[in-house]
């Protein structure tokens, strides 16, 4: 038999001005199972709380209903008070007599009636409340950062500087990402390498960071604070510990005609290679797809020239298993290639290039040492056209969104061109100029006003070659839609920023959601931009949507703080208001029939399949099981389950039906 205490609050006069608090207390006192009821001026004040605590002790209360303000305000206060008096905190409920009654209704009979109803509902509910214990999970204080672009670098450094361990994995031979390919950066035009390289080195030298380059995520298990991760370290075919990075092997390798990924195909590399001079780590890998030895069984020149015999042709991929407490996803983005644009030549005109290729041309470390020369014949283009929104904002091509960074880098490119090619003419075909950011609009204005870049509002319809010129068929919509044809020497397409081709597979591995374009989805578009729906997994940089460096870096620091918060605790304490699948004695085990409708409903992939096995190890039944580390307590699964096998603690079927019945039976 329950012994429930009802504590009615006046809230000064906030409640008592319209609700007859004494009558609420008196009427509730008569309810079945109520052992004590009282009204008081300020329940949340110290004397108020003491009133509750002593009643619990003296009357041996088994449940408490505080009729006061919104539970969103003081539920934690009263639950804590109960716990201090030795009552399980989840045996306490609040009736909202202030926000939902006294403040919204006039004084009168109906208002007090409503207050009494609200108390009664909760008295009945509390009868079905169960003692629950806060969930505690241990935290492994090592973070995994996936992707070594500027976002991954920043996140790793920030986490490492809080004193926690970081494992950074990068799929390429070097970290650096797209930023390492850039020439100068908007809106300040400072050299990308100059500001990035020190950070890359810092990563390599940081005592708290373990860098695995040429490595990818193999699998993930577990949940927040307790992930078990397997990392595939792809074979580099060298002994990294021995190799000094002298580079002799790379100069002697006879396979020299492989288009360099780092130079976006505008330069060549060897089969054993370091992607770029400032690479971190600065040690080569053998690209087995192009190495003559792996292809034909002959060569081994690198092995011969290596002064310390560091080449290992028989090296195999290794799998590293690590325990991780949090994961930061920072895998960045990709850009569309010119073959995505049939109307601009299907990638067959060498002088129609992407913005990223232009970065390499403009970069002092690039294939032309920073001179703007066109790929076909090395001539300096006298007329250059930049095409904005190439593939972006193009529903017909399946990319309706704006890629966000291109308006700015086009202005930068046109500016760099004007600075480098005196007397050259540059045109930008654009639809809108999106330059929202500190000093961004000013930057674009400078390109137009000071550097004389010709901005033409209109989309290019077609590009074709005629007598060595690229004919760009555009239009000026501000001149009454006047067709504008330009004979260009080179055309730069600001191609759409898109998700990496392996993004979907990676998201599925990690159980994080992704949007229609395969960018990873944040947990809330405004208030949880660096969280994912999976607790303990965070996002940084352009893997969430195309973004520039300042934003990628802020986001990375944000994600790092989230990780640091998590690591500031030894144990995670979570509200136990989570779902559970019932368990019964064998041979039934549970009323769950294993339909797994709940699995499809859960927004957090918190429900797993559990196999019940007999002694012989044979599977007799497959049941749903809620992972308490992942469940957020939304209850969606509960409404889906047809056999009522899954229930939400704190909002159980019994409790909810009881509330409804209690309400209507008297109302």
């Amino acid at each position, binding site marked *: 038999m329950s012994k429930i205490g009802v504590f009615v609050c006046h809230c000064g006069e906030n409640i008592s001005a319209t609700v007859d608090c004494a009558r609420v207390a008196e009427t509730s006192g008569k309810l079945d199972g109520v052992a004590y009821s009282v009204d008081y001026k300020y329940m949340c004040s110290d004397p108020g709380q003491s009133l509750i605590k002593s009643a619990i002790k003296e009357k041996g209360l088994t449940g408490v209903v505080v009729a006061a303000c919104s539970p969103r305000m003081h539920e934690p206060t009263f639950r804590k008070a109960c716990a201090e008096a030795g009552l399980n905190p989840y045996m306490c409920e609040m009736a909202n007599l202030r926000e939902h009654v006294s403040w919204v209704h006039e004084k009168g009979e109906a208002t007090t009636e409503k207050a009494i109803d609200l108390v009664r509902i909760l008295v009945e509910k509390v009868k079905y409340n169960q003692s629950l214990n806060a969930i505690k999970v241990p935290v492994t204080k090592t973070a995994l950062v996936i992707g070594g672009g500027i976002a991954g670098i920043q996140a790793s450094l920030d986490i490492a500087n809080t004193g926690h361990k970081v494992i950074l994995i990068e799929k390429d031979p070097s970290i650096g990402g797209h930023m390492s390919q850039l020439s100068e950066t908007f809106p300040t035009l400072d050299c990308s390498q100059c500001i990035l390289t020190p950070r890359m080195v810092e990563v390599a030298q940081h005592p708290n960071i373990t860098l695995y380059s040429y490595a990818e995520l193999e699998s993930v298990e577990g949940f927040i604070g307790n992930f078990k991760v397997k990392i595939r370290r792809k074979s580099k075919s060298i002994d990294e510990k021995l190799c000094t990075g002298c580079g002799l092997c790379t100069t002697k390798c006879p396979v020299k005609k492989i288009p360099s990924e780092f130079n976006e195909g505008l330069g060549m590399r060897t089969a054993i290679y370091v992607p770029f001079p400032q690479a971190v780590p600065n040690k080569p890998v053998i690209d087995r797809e192009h190495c003559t030895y792996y292809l034909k069984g002959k060569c081994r020149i690198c092995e011969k020239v290596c002064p310390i015999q560091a080449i290992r042709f028989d090296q195999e991929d290794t799998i590293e298993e690590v325990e991780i407490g949090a994961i930061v996803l920072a895998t960045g983005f990709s850009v569309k290639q010119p073959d995505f644009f*049939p109307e601009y030549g*299907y990638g*067959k005109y060498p002088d129609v290039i992407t913005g990223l290729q232009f970065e390499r041309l403009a970069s002092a470390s690039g294939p032309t040492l920073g001179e703007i020369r066109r790929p076909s014949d090395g001539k300096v283009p006298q007329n250059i056209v930049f095409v904005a929104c190439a593939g972006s904002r193009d529903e017909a091509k399946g990319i309706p969104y704006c890629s966000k960074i291109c308006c700015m880098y086009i202005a930068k490119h046109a500016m760099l061109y004007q600075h480098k090619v005196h007397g050259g003419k540059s045109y930008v075909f654009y639809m809108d100029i999106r330059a929202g950011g500190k000093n961004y609009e000013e930057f674009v204005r400078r390109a137009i006003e000071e550097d004389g870049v010709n901005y033409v509002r209109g989309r290019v319809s*077609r590009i*074709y070659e*005629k*007598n060595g010129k690229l*004919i760009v068929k555009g239009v000026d919509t501000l001149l009454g839609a006047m067709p504008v044809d330009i004979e260009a020497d080179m055309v730069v397409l600001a191609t759409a920023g898109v998700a990496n081709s392996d993004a979907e597979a990676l998201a599925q591995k990690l159980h994080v959601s992704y949007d229609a374009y395969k960018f990873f989805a944040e947990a809330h578009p405004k208030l949880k931009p660096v969280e994912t729906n999976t607790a303990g997994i965070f996002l940084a940089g352009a893997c969430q949507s195309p973004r520039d460096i300042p934003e990628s870096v802020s986001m990375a620091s944000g994600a790092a703080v989230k990780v640091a918060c998590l690591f500031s605790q030894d144990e995670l304490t979570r509200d136990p208001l989570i779902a559970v699948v019932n368990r019964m004695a064998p041979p039934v085990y549970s009323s769950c029939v294993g339909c797994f409708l709940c699995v499809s409903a859960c927004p957090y992939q918190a429900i797993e399949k559990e196999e019940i096995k007999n002694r012989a190890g044979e599977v007799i039944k497959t049941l749903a099981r809620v992972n308490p580390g992942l469940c957020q307590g939304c209850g969606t699964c509960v409404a889906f389950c047809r056999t009522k096998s899954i229930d939400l603690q704190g909002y159980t079927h019994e409790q909810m039906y009881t509330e409804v019945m209690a309400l209507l039976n008297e109302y």
Partner: protein
Amino acid sequence: MTLGFYPGCSLKGSSREYAESVLAVAKAFDITIEEIKDWNCCGATAAHNMNRELSFALPARILSLAEKQGLTEVVVPCAACYSRLTVTQYELAKDKELKDRISEVNGMEYKGSVTILNIIQMLDKYITPKLEGKVVKPFDHKVACYYGCLLVRPHEILKFDREEDPQSMDEVMLKAGATPIDWAFKTECCGAGLSISRTPSVGKLSGMIVGDAKDRGAEAIIVACPMCHSNLDMRRKEINKYLGEKVDIPVLYITQALGLAVGLDRKELGLNRHFVKVTV
């Protein structure tokens, strides 16, 4: 092997050499061609410019006749007719009400069961697979394959080849021993329906096409549409005027070029009927 045949008006008149070459090639490959009986004009540009319902009724009548005649596959060499027939089939399949209304207008049941082939599809399906060994006089020339508008657009409906820079004609010509050139005006419009009413426009549009083919060293332009042919061949006076020079690259139907490659007689292929002398 019997194939239904819809020649359309042009192939009976100003472009009869196209029909002649289609029939000659078909014969050389043992394909029996069966013309749709009592066929009518598809309505061409005029109908869909002026009257939507008529623009569906005329092609639907043709297709109904083909159905009645028991034809399952009909080759339509004229790209314009092909486009009208295919668009009609597409629209009527999409809209049952329209289909019923058109059947009623025509006083003929329309089922929509006929497969319509354009000339390239016909060649791809029945001729090029058997070409090996049959090419006796490879068409050893640099050719510019000109597709025009109606063979490739609208892509949603025709779903034929890729929209910009299509390849299927080039592939056929390659098999006939030619060297197709990469050029920039494969699918630009020649001016088609405005040939008579706005001749100077046609001179310009066709002029750019012929000009690019010439600049890139084409020895012949290969077409698959009577309208393209008329504009590029018969309008050469206006074209030359636009280009400011005399260009004498001949324009051949793909079936003529193929016919030459397999050794058919020039006259049988109607090559004598061209304005620009066929020297290749």
